[in-house]
Every structure is written in structure tokens, then in C-alpha cells.
């Protein structure tokens, strides 16, 4: 029951966040034209409020089940380590939009689960924003998007395990079984594809929050009433011209980092996951309950 309720909150907050990002694609033509400029001025404020509320709701839910001391400590330290990796980004010349923070977020979500992944993504962007002076109106969107990268990394592992169990003895199953958790090389293969996709998705999502309000060439900007197909074409052109090369560097960087660091990082995190499953004996300590999951 509790899982169902929590799942409902994930789905609703995710739907709200995604709707806030992509609603210009679905606004009917007549409606947009009727409200014109007045509505376009309300929209950025409304979008920011909705994204903010959906992040807040998800954070309340994720914290509401009381984070154990182990989760808090591990999350805090992993966020610190990942934030420090951001200094490497400044210290060494790194091409395009590549940032070394995404690989640890994805791996942490994959090893420790969706909830941990979301919190890791959200807090990493927040903490690194605080230490590098990167707090600004863009931060909630970055937190939301990086949080979703971590969240879906947790789901990726569940999907891989489910496919191995459910798909049966088909040819696909034999292929999938080679890409299931346990063998860290197959984990890395799955994560490389996932990291590359998120390298592009991160840029594409971050663009969408300002693209409907951007001013520029008619072939690349959104205007009310152009319809879904035309909107997608225009966004595709805008994305190809302004962001694709930048985001490809991020995707390729993620793949390179996951290829190099993936196996040792997964092994280290798996080892610590087992070590973190210590349990407090409540008969001797009098402590009511300590959860064993990280």
C-alpha cells in the first residue's frame, strides 16, 4: 500500500514537472491565439512555480519516510565527493557541455535505487551550485533534471532485472540476460547507453524551460498556435543549431567516464552497500528501529 502511494506521488510530481516543461507543445492553436501576449507573460512564472512545487512535493515524500543515518551520511559524503569532481571540470579543459558529475549520479542511482538517485542528483547540483557560486533561477530546473537522471537510473536496474525474469527464453531474453546487474561489464554497457541518452536529454530539457519565450528566427522559435508537428520541427532545428554539438560532448564524456570509472565505481559502491547493511540490535540498545536499506 505504502509503495503504491509513494509511486502515485512519483508519477504525479513527474507528470506535473514534465507538463510544466512541455506544455507549449500541446497548447491548442485557438486557445493560444485568443490569450496571446497576456498568457505568454504569465507562463514563465507559472512554469517556474509548478516545477518548484513538483520538486518540493517529491522531496517531502522522499524525506517523509525518514532517511536512515546511513542514507544521510552516505548521501552527504557522495554529494561532497561528486561536488569536488566539479573542480576537475574547472581545473582541466573539458570540451562542450561535459561535466564529471553525471556519471557518479547515474551510478549511485543504479546501485542504491531510484530514491537515492533522485536525492543524489538534486543535492549534488544544489551543493555544487552553493560552493561554485552557481545559485540562480536555473538551479531548480538543473536540480529537477539531474534528480530525474538519478531516479531513472534506479528504475533502469529494476527494468533490467524484470526483463530477465519475465521475458522468458526468447532470443531477446538471452541478450538481456547478458546485460543484467551482477556482471559489472554488462552494467557498464547498459549505463553507457543510458549516460549518452541523458547527456542529450539534460540539454534538451534545460532548453525547453526557456525556449518557448526565446526571441529569434521564426524557423527556430515557438509562437502560439503553430501546432505540435511544427513545434517539434522548430525545436529540432533550434536544438540542432544551438545545443546538439555541446550536448554530444556531454553524452560522449558520460560514456567515456562510465567506461573508465564504471566498473571500479560499481564494485566499490556495491561493497559499501553490503557494509552499510549493519543493523542495530534494539534489545541491547533500546533504539526503536533502524532501517537496513540504504
Amino acid at each position, binding site marked *: 500500500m505504502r509503495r503504491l502511494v509513494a509511486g502515485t506521488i512519483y508519477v504525479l510530481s513527474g507528470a506535473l514537472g514534465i507538463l510544466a516543461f512541455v506544455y507549449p507543445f500541446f497548447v491548442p492553436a485557438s486557445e493560444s491565439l485568443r490569450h496571446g501576449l497576456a498568457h505568454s507573460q504569465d507562463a514563465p512564472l*507559472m512554469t517556474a512555480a509548478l516545477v518548484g*512545487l513538483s520538486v518540493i512535493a517529491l522531496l517531502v515524500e522522499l524525506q517523509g519516510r525518514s*532517511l536512515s543515518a546511513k542514507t*544521510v551520511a552516505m548521501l552527504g559524503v557522495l554529494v561532497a565527493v561528486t561536488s569536488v569532481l566539479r573542480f*576537475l571540470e574547472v581545473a582541466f579543459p573539458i570540451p562542450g557541455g561535459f561535466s564529471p558529475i553525471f556519471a557518479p549520479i547515474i551510478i549511485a542511482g543504479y546501485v542504491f535505487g531510484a530514491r537515492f538517485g533522485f536525492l543524489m542528483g538534486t543535492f549534488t547540483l544544489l551543493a555544487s551550485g552553493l560552493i*561554485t557560486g552557481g545559485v540562480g*533561477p536555473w538551479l531548480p530546473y538543473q536540480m529537477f533534471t539531474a534528480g530525474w537522471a538519478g531516479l531513472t537510473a534506479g528504475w533502469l536496474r529494476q527494468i533490467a532485472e524484470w526483463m530477465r525474469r519475465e521475458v522468458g527464453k526468447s532470443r531477446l531474453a538471452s541478450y538481456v540476460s547478458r546485460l543484467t546487474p551482477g556482471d559489472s561489464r554488462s552494467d557498464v554497457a547498459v549505463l553507457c547507453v543510458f549516460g549518452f541518452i541523458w547527456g542529450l536529454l539534460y540539454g534538451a530539457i534545460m532548453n525547453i524551460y526557456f525556449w518557448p519565450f526565446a526571441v529569434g528566427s521564426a524557423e527556430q522559435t515557438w509562437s502560439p498556435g503553430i501546432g505540435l508537428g511544427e513545434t517539434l520541427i522548430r525545436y529540432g532545428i533550434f536544438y540542432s543549431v544551438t545545443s546538439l554539438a555541446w550536448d554530444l560532448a556531454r553524452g560522449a*564524456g558520460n560514456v567515456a567516464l562510465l567506461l573508465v570509472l564504471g566498473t571500479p565505481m560499481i564494485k566499490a559502491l556495491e561493497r*559499501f552497500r553490503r*557494509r552499510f547493511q549493519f543493523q542495530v540490535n534494539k534489545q541491547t540498545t533500546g533504539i526503536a528501529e533502524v532501517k537496513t536499506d540504504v
Partner: protein
Amino acid sequence: MFDARVWLLWALTTLVAASSTRNPLYVVVLLLTTTVVGGTCATAGSRRAPLSPIRFAMIAVPLSAIFNGLTVHFGDTVLFHLPDWIPLLGGAITLEALTFGALNGLTLTVIFDAFSVFNQATPVRDIIKLTPRAFHEGGVVLSIALTFIPQTTRSLRRIREAQAVRGHRVRGIRDWLPIVVPLLVSGLERAMGLAEAMVARGYGAVVDEGQSLRTQGLLIAGLLALLAGWLTYLFSAVWRVAALALIIGGAATIGLAIWLTGRAVKHTVYRARRWTYGDSLALLGCALTLAVALTQRGPLYYSPYPQLTLPPFNPLIGLGLLGLLVPAVVGVAREDLEPLDQKMEKRNEAEAEPTDG
């Protein structure tokens, strides 16, 4: 110097004001204001932004001008033509499009500068204090992370030195492996120790499941109301008032869930910061600028299209935008009124403070 909430409002007000105009004269007023406030209020030991506002402007303004100039072929003053067979870029390159792009870059610089000032003028501990009580655990995670960052930085330096002694040099991404893995493992060892210490002190010993269910119910109701309200707002003009009521109701329900969660968290402050007259004055200054930005949208509007003209300037609006200058004025006045012995004491404290980053 000022309350963190005042700084946050100041940065948000600058964001709203900058977003409301493309008139270069008002944008320059805002840019000068943020620069003066930054110069006056940023403390010597404050965090520096990864990119200075001047460098940001040197990148953002020309890039934005070139991008807009190459992709928008509108405006009367044609500078030259690019061949029409070049997709997207082919057509007339106009002075108006270049100017509008440069103005966009300048506006972005104002926003970047305002948040740089916010980052510099507000200590991290004050920003964490802004965390609502409902996010107490998130605040703890953030505090641990920010406490461990200097330690992790030191570890990183030690590991790099140790690897350098062994002849290791960072040339490519593969060379990060002997640095990142020991950094991760040593960090996780510290997390292990910290978790054991937290459990030993009884952290998280009491779990209130009943409250969690109630909170979850409220969150679901709030999210459903927001979703339904937003969809109705977008797709039905007839039910717009009802949709807004649903959105407000949904936001209020989520607010209630946060309040109920926060109520259960006991919060103590070792040394509370007092609200000062300076804070009130800065707040009034922000309110003035916000009022101007929200009510004078027409006069603030400026477009160089179709032909570049001199932008209008209303001194009263310019004066209203100077409300953002109040933190600098109050800061200078405070410094002048402060007795000399207190200034000396502060300077000695700043000099004695370790600067380990």
C-alpha cells in the same frame, strides 16, 4: 550584513526587473546597480563565482549578438547579405538584429551579476538556514556535504600528490581512475564512521509512520489539484477561474503538508540573527523596484525593430530601479557609523581567520 531572505528577494527583484525590459538605458542602470552593490557588499572572504561578470559579459554579449544577427533576418538597416542557399543563416544581416542580440546578452549579464552578488554576500550557512523545517533531513545532508567538501578537497590534493610521486600525470580521462576511486573509497569510509556515530547518538531512532501517511495523502491531493488546475487553465478558457482556484488550492495543500511535516521537527538556534532597520530599508527598496517593474511594463518595453531608434528614458522609472541600490547605501552608511575600534577588531578577526578552502 543583511538577512539572507533580503538578499534572495534582492536577487529575484533584479531578475524580474531585468526580464521586464530590453531598453539599453534601463539595462545599463541595472548593471551599474548590481556592480556597485557587489563592490560594496561582497565581503573579502566570500565565495567567488567561477566566472566574473565582466568575463561573462565579454562572452555573452558578442555571442548573443552574432547568434541573433545570423539567424534573424529582420530590420531595415541591412549591413550585408549571406547567400540564400545557406540553411537558416542565409539572408540579410541587419544592425537591428545584432543590437537586439547584444541587448539579450546584456540582460543575461545583469541576471548573472545579481546572483553572483547573492552568492558572494550570503554565507552558505545562512542559505542553509533558509531551508524550511520540513526539509530538515535534506538540510542535514547538505550540511554534511558542505562540511565534507573541504576534507574531500584535501583528500583529492593528497591523492594527486601521492600519485604524482609515483609518476602519474593527468593527461586524459583514463588518468582520472587512480584519483577518483581512492577519493570515493576514502569518502565512503568516512561516511561509514559518520553513520555509526549518528546511530550511536540515536539519529532517526523514532519513526512516525502515521504522520507520513497523512502527509502522503495531502501531497497526492495537492498534486492532483495542481495537475487538474493547470490542464484546465491551458485547455479551457471557460473554466479559467475554477482552474486558478484549483491551482491555488493545490499549492496550499502542498504548503500544509510541508507545514505539518515541519511542525514535528524541533528547531533550535544558537545565536539568532536580529532583523535590522537596514534589512527593512533594503526590503522597501526591492518593493519599489518590483512595483516599477510590474506596473510600468509598457514604458520599460523597447524594441530596435524595424529600425534602430534612440531608446526613451523616463527618469522616474530609472529612479524606481535604483531601489536596488539601497543595500549599497546602507552598507556604506553602516561602515561610516561604525566606531574605529570595531573596524579594527573586525579586520584583525578577518586576518586571523584560516582561509582553508
